């Protein structure tokens, strides 16, 4: 059952290979236009790609977490979240508990990073943390752990590096063309005839189109992975309703994530740039329509991959499955469980307080509880030996 990843990888590998071919093509064209030498362009493309891959492989997760301003937490900072990640780690059979990061942002969202399951991390915004009950949080974390377990994170990293390289090469190539960098190629084409001009025009058109094509492929890879991660989350938790209702809550929020951009969008559980009532099956979206994801999860008769596949085919037409055949072959019946006892709606105020306390604490503020019950948050720069409670006037030692 846990080998589903392999054949899913071949399917995605074809798409990634497509992007690779596109990179080679654009390198070659750049070479022809600017250097009169296709091989030279290939070498440039290869060097740019190599540098970006190395940086992405060794520093990718740090860059991403840094960009999102995520902060690492331990068990004592937020026992419930930590425990839930541990529960999902056990359910998925992952070897190591991923690092857990919190992003101080009211927009509810989450993502996973890490080049392999031993060096993975999940990040969740404080907004999401305070909105969800335990079962919902379990569904979301299950989804993120599935991305780690299915090696989606690595795949997305590889394809985003490819995409980045293509975009950078195309960007510089078009800028150079428009701002007079084409002198060299004009000189060389003086000896040629109309044939060479046609080649040039086609090359330019391709250079402009390549980044768009690459982006479409990138989105296609990402969308497939989302369905697969939803199916895995349902299987781990045996409770698809948890993820469904979490997605509903996330979709209902209108807050936009501050720290996301187009390149990091596919990492999140929910597209951070989604617009309301966007048409279903959009080529340019990184995520499947949320209403459809919810509907599939809610219609599942059991928790197994086969159940997910069945509903998916009902929505998309028979024969257009999303779970690879090898995973289905190993799929076995898995019953649904009842809602957890702790899954009653959380006390909103209490949860908000809990999350904001956590954010203060992560900002290395010290918390002192005054005798009157007021919690005083002392900033790290505060040097006085005592502080006066603004509520009751008592003097508290720091």
């Amino acid at each position, binding site marked *: 059952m846990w080998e589903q990843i392999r054949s899913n990888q071949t399917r995605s590998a074809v798409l990634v290979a497509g992007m690779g071919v596109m990179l080679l093509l654009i390198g070659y064209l750049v070479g022809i236009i600017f250097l009169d030498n296709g091989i030279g362009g290939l070498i440039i493309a290869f060097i740019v790609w190599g540098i970006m891959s190395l940086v992405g492989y060794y520093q990718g997760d740090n860059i991403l977490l840094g960009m999102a301003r995520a902060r690492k937490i331990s068990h004592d900072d937020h*026992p419930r979240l930590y*425990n839930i990640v541990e529960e999902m780690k056990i*359910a998925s059979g992952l070897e190591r508990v991923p690092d857990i990061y919190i992003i101080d942002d009211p927009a509810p969202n989450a993502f996973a990073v890490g080049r392999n399951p031993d060096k993975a991390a999940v990040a969740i915004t404080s907004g999401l943390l305070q909105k969800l009950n335990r079962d919902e949080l379990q569904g979301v974390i299950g989804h993120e752990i599935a991305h780690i377990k299915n090696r989606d994170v690595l795949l997305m990293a590889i394809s985003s590096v490819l995409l980045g390289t293509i975009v950078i090469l195309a960007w510089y190539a078009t800028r150079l063309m428009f701002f007079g960098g084409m002198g060299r190629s004009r000189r060389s084409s003086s000896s040629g005839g109309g044939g060479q001009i046609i080649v040039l025009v086609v090359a330019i058109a391709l250079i402009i189109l390549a980044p768009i094509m690459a982006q479409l492929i990138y989105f296609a890879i990402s969308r497939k992975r989302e369905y697969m991660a939803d199916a895995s989350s349902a299987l781990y938790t045996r409770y698809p309703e948890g993820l469904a209702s979490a997605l509903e809550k996330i979709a209902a929020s209108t807050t936009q994530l501050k720290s996301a951009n187009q390149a990091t969008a596919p990492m999140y559980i929910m597209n951070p740039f989604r617009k309301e009532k966007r048409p279903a099956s959009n080529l340019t979206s990184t995520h499947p329509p949320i209403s459809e994801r919810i509907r599939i999860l809610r219609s599942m008769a059991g928790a197994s991959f086969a159940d997910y596949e069945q509903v998916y085919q009902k929505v998309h037409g028979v024969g257009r499955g999303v779970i690879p055949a090898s995973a289905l072959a190993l799929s076995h019946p*898995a019953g649904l469980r009842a809602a957890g*006892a702790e899954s*009653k709606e959380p006390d909103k105020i209490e949860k908000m307080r809990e999350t904001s306390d956590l954010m203060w604490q992560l900002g290395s503020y010290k918390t002192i509880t005054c005798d009157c019950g007021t919690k005083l948050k002392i900033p790290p720069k505060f040097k006085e030996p005592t502080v006066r409670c603004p509520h009751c006037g008592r003097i508290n030692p720091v």
Partner: protein
Amino acid sequence: MIGVYVIIGIVVVLLVIFIAIYNRLVGWRNQVKNAWAQIDVQLKRRYDLIPNLIETVKGYVKHERETLEAVTKARNLAQQAASAGAGERGKAEGELSSALARLLAVVERYPDLKANQNFLALQEELTSTENKISFSRQYYNDSVLKFNNQIQMFPSNMVAGMTGFKAGEFFEVTAEEERKAPKVSFT
């Protein structure tokens, strides 16, 4: 001469297939073992949490001596059954789960206790441990199912038969309460 080469070729191919299947079976058996170890870790954690829980609860629920004793007894019995097979152990752990569920239902009636920070922290740990037990059981049973299927299915059943692989035992928790609600009800 060609005939000899063909025969050698067939033997080599068969040998390679045999080795590949054997290695895969070993991999799955290790996964089952590993999954069992996971359950073990969580069950031990539950044994460790219970004395703390009893200590914390004792002061508040003076009239529930029987319930408390039942939990302690079930815990000790479960700990003794720890070296037994999956079937017997499942039964003992089921008893413990239902004794715990009864205690935590009783606790509902004591609002003072539910405001105790120490108790709340313990409650979270216990809830999560119960979840971890059921998730590790789920993973273990999935692994056993997969392993057993391979042992029974052609062609790996031939390799398994020749090399003496034995089917794994499922870990079922037998107490009624546990089957109905795999989670302890707290709040």
